[in-house]
């Protein structure tokens, strides 16, 4: 699998895919996309990078253990649901905030935080499985 072409292209391909995955994640609320699909795209980006260049560069690039990323995601999603406690509304109620920026306004919400959590859980879990499988048993 480790042809020269694949090895050369893989880093660029992976970065593009991750960029795309974030795009898909953020646009998900109004257009096709969302945290789950975005997470899958990012996970396949890491898988491709790993197949092409080996596992250790991916682990270095990720910096954190993938399972830690996954855990952070679950924490973020839970926090997004729990924030409602401070506003005395039921668990998981979406809370919205419009932040004015450069004359336009950006809607920030707990729902978005929740979706980012989903994204991180999917990326973390699947990447950690894929990387563990890619590692040779005795290397």
């Amino acid at each position, binding site marked *: 699998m480790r042809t020269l072409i694949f090895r050369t292209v893989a880093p660029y391909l992976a970065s593009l895919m991750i960029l795309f995955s974030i795009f898909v994640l953020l646009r998900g*609320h109004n*257009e096709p996309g*969302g945290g789950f699909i975005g997470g899958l795209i990012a996970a*396949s980006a890491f898988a491709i990078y790993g197949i092409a260049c080996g596992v250790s560069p991916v682990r270095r690039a990720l910096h954190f253990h993938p399972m830690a990323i996954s855990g952070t995601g679950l924490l973020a999603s839970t926090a997004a649901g729990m924030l409602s406690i401070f506003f005395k509304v039921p668990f998981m109620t979406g809370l*919205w905030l419009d932040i004015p920026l450069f004359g336009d306004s950006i809607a920030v*919400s707990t729902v978005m935080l*929740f979706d980012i959590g989903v994204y991180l*859980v999917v990326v973390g879990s699947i990447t950690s*499985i*894929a990387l563990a499988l890619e590692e040779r048993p005795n290397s």
Partner: protein
Amino acid sequence: MNSFMPSTTFAVLLLPFIAALFAPALTRLLKHNAAWILALVPAAICWHFSGFLAEISAGEVVTGGYQWVPALKVNFSWYIDGLSLTFALLITGIGTLIVLYSGGYLKGHAQLGRFFSFILMFMGSMLGLVMSDSFLMFFIFWELTSITSFLLIGFDNKREASRRAALQALVVTGGGGLFLLAGLLLIWNVTGYSEMSLLLRSGSLLADSPYYIAIFVLVLGGAFTKSAQFPMHFWLPNAMEAPTPVSAYLHSATMVKAGVYLLMRLNPVLGDTMAWHIVLPLFGGTTLIVGTLLAIRQTDLKLMLAYTTVSSLGLLVMLTGFGTEKAIEGAVLYLVAHCLFKGALFMVAGIIDHEAGTRDVTKLGGLMTAMPITFAAALASAISMAGLPPFFGFLAKEEIYAGLWQVSFWGGLLTIVAIVGNALMFVIGFVVALKPFLGRRKLKLGNVHEGPVLLWLGPVLLATASLLTAIFSPMTHRLITSPMASAVEGEPVSAYISLVPHIGMPLLLSLITVAIGVFAYINVARLRALMIYALYKIGWGPDKGFDQFIRGTVRLSFRVTNFIQPGRMEFYMKVIFILVAVSILLPMALFDEWPAMPQWPDTISRYEAVIMAIAAVGLFSVLYAKDRLTAIVSLGIQGFAVALLFMLFGAPDLSFTQFMVETLSVVILALAMTRLRLTPTDHRPLKEKIFDTIISLACATAFVLLLLKVTQLPFDTTLSDFFTRYSLSIAHGANIVNVILVDFRGTDTWGEIAVVMVAGLAILSLIRIRTRPANAIAANDPAEEDERL
């Protein structure tokens, strides 16, 4: 009861647990002298409860408590009457002495702090048990005593025998606790009461209920295991592996009496029935005789005492079951007397062991001059145990005979049982108290001297109590015996028995008992030889049976696990897919819910035909693939074709996800396959191939039929209308699918991502296991275990 009112009784119930928390630190600071400070805790509690004596002896009851789970009508409430007050005083009074004694007995032990902590926790649990008004609280404390007893028996956890005894006690008493829980829930269900105080006023509600026998059996299941009734008595002698303070406290004075307490507590509502009058004396009487006979066989001081404890518990159960007013009074008197003399005798056995280095009665002798204080305490306690004046045991035995003696077959039989049991206990009492002290000094013993004050204080005070309670019997009866007997009986009774002997049947029976006892004491060596021979002839008893039971359970579970989990992937997959096919096809067949034949579309557009052709090509190449990798990739072709179809029919989100899932499955499957080191080609025999084909066709048919059926059913649009209408206005999102995922049904997604993460962790650890050496996974085959042993 509604609002939280601070109460001293509540604080006092918590105090032992709080003290248990600080005991290790205190012991680190003060070494064994921490006992003096820690003993203040039970002493203070004892003081608090003795404040209730006046009120209770006047016939009052004290209740209190807080709501715990109001929705389930569960309260944290206590109930103080004559029965629970006497128990509380015994627990804390003897507890004070035991804490002091422990300080002397385990002086210099590295884990003394932990020991204090355990014993205080036990004290709190036992106190909670006798104070509990609500059933659930009673059960929790009941199990807590089992757990703390487990910790204490296994205190010397480096020894195999201790660990076994601890586990055995936990299994037997904990298992009995489950019976009790079922019994209590049934009582709750039948009467609607969840509190003892209310239940005791329910009259004959339980006795008349059709569930009476079930309740009766379940309650006995709890009481008989806890109070070591034959044939569940075996755990108690084994529990002698515990340090002697534990044996003196838990396994003679308090915990083992919890079963008797339960029977006495429920006597007013469960008693006075045919079953009660027959079953309890039957088991109690058998336990009494078996216990004393087994005690004769022993030469170890502690084991002799342990078996007589078993028989004393039998006697108490027998009397409670017999149920006449005098019998109940006898039981009450004997219970108090037993706590005093047996606690003292256990402590004496501990002192002898501590100072002389052995508990074997055949190796001991002539210690009287070396240990005069211990000897005095032992002698006084043995006299009480033998039922001779001027000690409290005499009152108890007289009352027992007065209660049992009737000119009827049943009364006569039980009287004979009681005489034999008492005579044999007379023997054991004096063997323990006289043999080590009298006779010639055994040379091997070396220079033995009296133990420190921490050790002999307990037995001396208990022996004194045996004497004083008997001499001032009117006061004892007014404060302790009569209120407690009234609580057990359910109506006011008063005891009058005193040290002044009355000429009558009980005195005659006592004289017979003493005569038999003296005769047996002289011939004790011969009796012991006889018992050893008899037991040898009988073979294995319930103790061995327990081992067989445990081994059988382990073997059975191993077989079952081996059958359900043979560890072969193909087997699992086959079972799963067969079940999938059956669970879809069977309901359709049973309810005749087959889908109608779908209408064949008139025209198929060219691109649809092309996509379907791609899917078909993918499937064929899976079937014709020479190696696994090709098959996996070909499976991907079919997946992509399906994703394209989704796209064409207006489900971009679904299609998108399908693409990604398909890509990742191919990658991960391929990676997994390369690691599994399977043969690249299919090696299944033809028969298996055909079988697998049938399974896969059945699954496929099932899914096709299911999908057809689903699309043919009328479509309820309520939900889709709702989501379409409100997606943008409520949830600020135009993509309905995503809005449902992250907002409307967010909690579902939340659960799902948690599952994804846990699954990821599980897969990760499975992959890691593969990289370790094969023998790193421990085998659980009991056969191998046996071989190693």
